[in-house]
């Protein structure tokens, strides 16, 4: 990975020197070995801080959201999942393709700095495993789907078996059992909204949960409001979730958010077919549930 770091640094330095970019988004090292975080290089001198290592798990496509209203030309290094995030932002017209110079990195799988931080912090009695992060073991697209330049050898998907196995189990439950299951699952949510903030697909300028007049979803920690939050958040992700797993990874109370995301991925796949969210970019294309046609079936109305 040192080699990849060097190559990315060299590309970023060249882009700065040729005046082709104003910023380069990637990762940098924090003070401890496992602390790798998102980074914005602003000039050729900053480039030396860029790293790509086994903890570069953060989905940097999310960092683009802070630049959507400005005019900087942006270089960005992306893994497979991050690149799918860029496709989402392009589809949603949040950023223009010609502002971006994308350096794709086929991803060998990452470790989770948060799990390492928890192990290091001493709050838990049991140590968590320090192998590849769960989201990386479940990854179907380690290779970037959109890029101007590719660095490093292609990787094969790590996901094994039926990725909808658990979803299918839950589908088999009776309606009451299922309700109970989700009610229990969401009862521990502290509504910190980290799962929303870390999500690149949550790119709405005004989020429904922040609307006050009218207030669509209450702020109580109650099963009603918690369920409303999650059902609304996740249904907004139908056809949009790029399966980057960041929401589940950052949740401070370990809510299995990917389970609901996968249910929606499965349903959207069955109902609409076509490639999954962010898997390919075709200019002007929209994901399912983002277009309106006169002849849309509306049997439920």
């Amino acid at each position, binding site marked *: 990975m040192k080699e990849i770091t060097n190559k990315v640094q060299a590309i970023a330095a060249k882009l700065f020197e040729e005046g082709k970019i104003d910023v380069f988004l990637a990762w940098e090292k*924090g*003070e401890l070995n496992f*602390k*790798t*975080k*998102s*980074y*914005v290089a602003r000039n050729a001198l900053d480039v030396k801080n860029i790293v790509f290592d086994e903890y570069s798990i*953060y989905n940097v496509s*999310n*960092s683009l959201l*802070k630049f959507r209203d400005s005019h900087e030309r942006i270089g960005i290094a992306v893994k497979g999942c991050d690149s799918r995030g860029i496709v989402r932002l392009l589809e949603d017209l949040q950023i223009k393709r010609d502002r971006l110079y994308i350096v794709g990195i086929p991803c060998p799988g990452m470790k989770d*700095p*948060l799990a390492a*931080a*928890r192990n*290091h*912090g*001493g*709050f*838990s*009695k049991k140590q968590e495993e320090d192998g590849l992060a769960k989201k990386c073991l479940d990854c179907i697209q380690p290779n970037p789907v959109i890029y101007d330049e590719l660095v490093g050898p292609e990787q094969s998907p790590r996901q094994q078996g039926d990725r909808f196995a658990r979803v299918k189990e839950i589908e088999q439950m009776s309606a009451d059992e299922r309700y109970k299951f989700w009610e229990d699952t969401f009862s*521990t949510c*502290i*509504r*910190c*909204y*980290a799962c*929303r*903030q*870390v999500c690149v697909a949550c790119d709405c300028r005004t989020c429904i949960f*922040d609307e*006050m007049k009218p*207030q669509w979803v*209450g*702020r*109580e*920690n*109650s099963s009603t409001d918690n369920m409303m939050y999650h059902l609304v958040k996740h249904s907004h992700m139908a056809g949009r979730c790029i399966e980057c797993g*960041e929401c589940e*990874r*950052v949740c*401070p*109370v*370990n*809510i299995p958010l990917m389970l609901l995301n996968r249910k929606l991925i499965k349903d959207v796949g069955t109902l609409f077919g076509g490639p999954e969210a962010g898997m390919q970019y075709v200019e002007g294309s929209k994901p399912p549930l983002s277009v309106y046609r006169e002849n849309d079936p509306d049997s439920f109305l």
Partner: protein
Amino acid sequence: MKVLSKAKLEAALNKLSDRNEVFVPMQKGQQSGYFTWKSFENGQDELMLDALNVYQSPKNAVLPQTEKMYSIKSQGVEVNIDQTYEDAHPTIIFGARGCDVKGIIAMDDVFLTRGYEDSFYKARRSGNTIIANACYEPGANCFCNAMEVNSLEPVGADVILRDAGDGYVWEVKSDKGEAVTALIADLLEEKEAKLPEVKPFIQKVDYSGVAEKLKSMFDHPLWDKLSQPCINCGMCTYVCPSCYCFDIQVKMWGEEGYRFRAWDSCMFEEYSREAGGGNPRGASKERFRQRFLHKLEFFKERYGTPLCTGCGRCIIVCPTDINIVRIIDAVKEAEINA
């Protein structure tokens, strides 16, 4: 000295729970925080008194994340308060670390001093007793010593426990402490116990002069750089033992409903949005700066002590590695060009 042997710990918690709601640090399924002893499920939950700390602080016991305040009934144009819910039922926080005790003492300043008393907080706090757990071995991210907390002698604790291996030395510190001690007097033994050796702090933090220096740093360029990675989730504020911001909201069904307060966070855009739609802290950087200025400058100016208690939680949970210790360092090192 009085000692509660660990073999009698569960008996003591049972006994205290007869008349009190007792909050203890636990690992409960996927959650790590303070939960009531009555909710403890043998074989599933794990008591965390012997761990450094738990992720969700005990502030929930005195400032619940959601707290019903009063119910309302409207008849025509008239709106009447039907019932208020000031809740003074007896609670005990059992085993709070010094940093978390300080969090509550800081909230006492906010809710009970400077000319206004919050009756809901006052009621809860009046029924609340704090049994602290002294720290002899600070963790990797602990820096309470730099934030005016004495982890061995937490100020504001009604009882202080000291883990002496097979028992807890039980030190009574106040009348409230006497009262809970009386409840389990028959379980306490009078004997000598050997206290553990005090280990040094790993984090070295120097907060001196930071509040004063920050006064002239509101527009300093360092905030741009420091805030860059922050995604303005509210995780750091929700796990923090001393963040107390709340919002008051209402739920109505036709003519009836209730008002409640719920934790809020300065990290949320909606928190500082004004009725007309403007927002003085519309940008991510501004909300980020607010959090750290409140912790390190404003609170110190108003109450004479920082609002960060050095517990280290936000350092562990932040998904973008924002580290308040590094922010203190950065402020210390910053150059101010007047």
